[in-house]
C-alpha cells in the first residue's frame, strides 16, 4: 500500500515539475484569473445584483472550464505517446492505474491551485457585505469536483490520440454535451417534441444540474456520487484505452 502511494506521489510530482517548467502553467493561471475577474464584474453584474453572494462569479465556471480544463489535460497521455516516454513509464514497476491516478491528481491539484487563487473575490464580497460563507465554500467544492470531472474526460481523450489538438477538441465536445444537457433551452426542446423523459435524462447527466445544487449550498450525496462516478468511469476508460494500444 505504501509503495502504491509512493508511486502515485512520484508520478504526480514529475507531472507537476514538468508542468511548471513550461510557461503553460503560468499562462493558464493568469488567463483563468483574468477571465474570472472580467466576467464576474463586467458581465456577471456583481455590483448590479446588490447581493452579498458569489453567484456572479461561480455561474461562469462551467463555461471557463469547458476550454481551460481540456487545455490542461490534453497533454497528459498524448505527449507521453508522442515522445515515446510512455514506453519508459509503463515498463517501470508501477501499475497503469497508479500512473493514471498520479497524472490525474497532479493536474487536479494544479486546477485547485488556480481555483484557490481566486480568493480575492471572496475577500471582496466579505468586505462589502456579509455573504453566506457556507454556500461559498460549498460552491467552491462543487467547482472543484466539476473541474475534476472535466479533467478526467480530457485525460481519457488524451489517451486516445498522440495529437494534442485532437485530444483537446474531442474533450471540449464531450464536455460541451455534458454542460448543454442542463441548459433550460434543451429541456424546452425535448418538451416541445414530446420526449420529456429524454430531457430529464440529459439534465440528470449534465454537470450543470449537479453544480447548481452546490450553488444553492446543498451538498447532496447524489451529486457527489455523480461527479465521483463520472471521474471513475473516465479514468477507468483511460486505462482500457491505454491497454488496447499496447495490445495492438
Amino acid at each position, binding site marked *: 500500500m505504501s509503495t502504491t502511494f509512493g508511486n502515485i506521489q*512520484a508520478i504526480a510530482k*514529475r507531472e507537476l*515539475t*514538468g508542468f511548471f*517548467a513550461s510557461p503553460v502553467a503560468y499562462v493558464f493561471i493568469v488567463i483563468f484569473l483574468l477571465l474570472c475577474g472580467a466576467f464576474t464584474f463586467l458581465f456577471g453584474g456583481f455590483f448590479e445584483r446588490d447581493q452579498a453572494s458569489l453567484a456572479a462569479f461561480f455561474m461562469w465556471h462551467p463555461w471557463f472550464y469547458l476550454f481551460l480544463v481540456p487545455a490542461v489535460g490534453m497533454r497528459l497521455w498524448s505527449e507521453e505517446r508522442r515522445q*515515446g516516454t510512455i514506453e519508459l513509464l509503463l*515498463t517501470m514497476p508501477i501499475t497503469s492505474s497508479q500512473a493514471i491516478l498520479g497524472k490525474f491528481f497532479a493536474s487536479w491539484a494544479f486546477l485547485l491551485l488556480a481555483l484557490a487563487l481566486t480568493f480575492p473575490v471572496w475577500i471582496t464580497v466579505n468586505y462589502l457585505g456579509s455573504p453566506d460563507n457556507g454556500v461559498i465554500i460549498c460552491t467552491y467544492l462543487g467547482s472543484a469536483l466539476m473541474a475534476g470531472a472535466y479533467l478526467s474526460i480530457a485525460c481519457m481523450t488524451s489517451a486516445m490520440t498522440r495529437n494534442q489538438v485532437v485530444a483537446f477538441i474531442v474533450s471540449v465536445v464531450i464536455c460541451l454535451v455534458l454542460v448543454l444537457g442542463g441548459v433550460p433551452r434543451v429541456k424546452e426542446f425535448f418538451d416541445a417534441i414530446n420526449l420529456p423523459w429524454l430531457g430529464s435524462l440529459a439534465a440528470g447527466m449534465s454537470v450543470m444540474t449537479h453544480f447548481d445544487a452546490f450553488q444553492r449550498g446543498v451538498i447532496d450525496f447524489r451529486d457527489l456520487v455523480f461527479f465521483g462516478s463520472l471521474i471513475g468511469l473516465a479514468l477507468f476508460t483511460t486505462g482500457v484505452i491505454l491497454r488496447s494500444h*499496447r495490445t*495492438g
Partner: protein
Amino acid sequence: MIRVENLTKLFGTKRAVDGISFSVERGEVLGFLGPNGAGKSTTMRMITGFIPPTDGKVKVGGFDMVENPIPAKRLIGYLPENAPAYTDMTVSGFLGFAAEIRGLRGEAKKKAIHRAVEMCFLENVLHQSVETLSKGYRHRTCFAQSIIHDPDVLVLDEPTDGLDPNQKHEVRGLIKRMGEKKAIIFSTHILEEVDAACSRAIIIDRGKIVANGTPQELRKKSEWAGAVTLRVKGVAGAAVSSKLYQVPLVNRVTVVEEKDGRVTVSVFPKPSEAGANGEFARAVGEAAHGWHIEQLQIEEGRLDEVFRSITMPDTAQEVKK
C-alpha cells in the same frame, strides 16, 4: 535470469515475432541482431512488459511478465529505441524521478543518481533541460535512467544509436563491464559491436531466430571462414587462379585485384571443410610454391557476410549461381 519461451506477437495478421525461445543468464551479454523490422524491438517490448505477447511466456528472475509484472519489472532496466526522456525536466530531475519510481529515497536516491551520472558522463549537463541536450547526451540520460537502480537485467534497444565513435566505444565498454554481473540483452545492427561486447549473439529475421551462438561460432558459418587471401608478384591472374583451383577442398577462387604485375586472390574452402582451415591454408601454400608471395592471410570469417547470407537467403542463392 531471462527466459523466453515460444514468444509470438501478431499485429493483425502479420507475425511480427514468431515463436522465439532463448534464455540469458547472469554474466551473459546477448547481442540481438537482425535487419530492420525483423522483430527485435517488438521482442524487447514484450520482455520488458510494455506490450503483452499474443502467445508464449516471458520470465524474468522467475517472475512471469504477464501474471506477475511488478516484481519482474523491478529487476529490469530498459533503454527503449530512440531513448525517450521527459523533455520538460532537467537531467537531474529526470533521474530523480527514475530513482523514486524504483523506490529509492533520500540518501539512497542521491547515491544512485551520482553513480549513474558518473557512469554515463553526465556531470556537465546535470542541471540542463533534457529538451536542450544534444542527441548523444539525451541518449546517455536515458541510459543512465536504465541503470539507476543497478538492475540484474538490462534490456537495451540500440544503445549506441546516434552516438559518435568515442561514445560508442565508451558504451560498448560499459556494457561489457556490466555484463560480468548482469544479464544483458542489447540489439544493434552494427556487427563490430557483437565482437566488442557480446558473449553470445542471436540473429532474427522475419520474427524467427535464424542463428544463435558465440560470435566465433557464427563467424564459422561464413564462406570466409578459413579462406586464404594471397598477393603474388610476377604471375598472371588467370594462371594463379587455374593453379589454385587444383588445390584439394577448394570451392572457389576470386581474383580481387590485378595491377602493377601483382595479383591478389582469395581462395575459399568447401563449406564443410571450413573448420580444418589450417590444413586448407597449408594446401594453398604448397600450390603457391615457387611464386613470389608478398602477402598471405588466413581469414577468420566475416560476421557481416554471415548476417547477409542468413537474413537474405534469396539474394545469397543468386550470388552462388
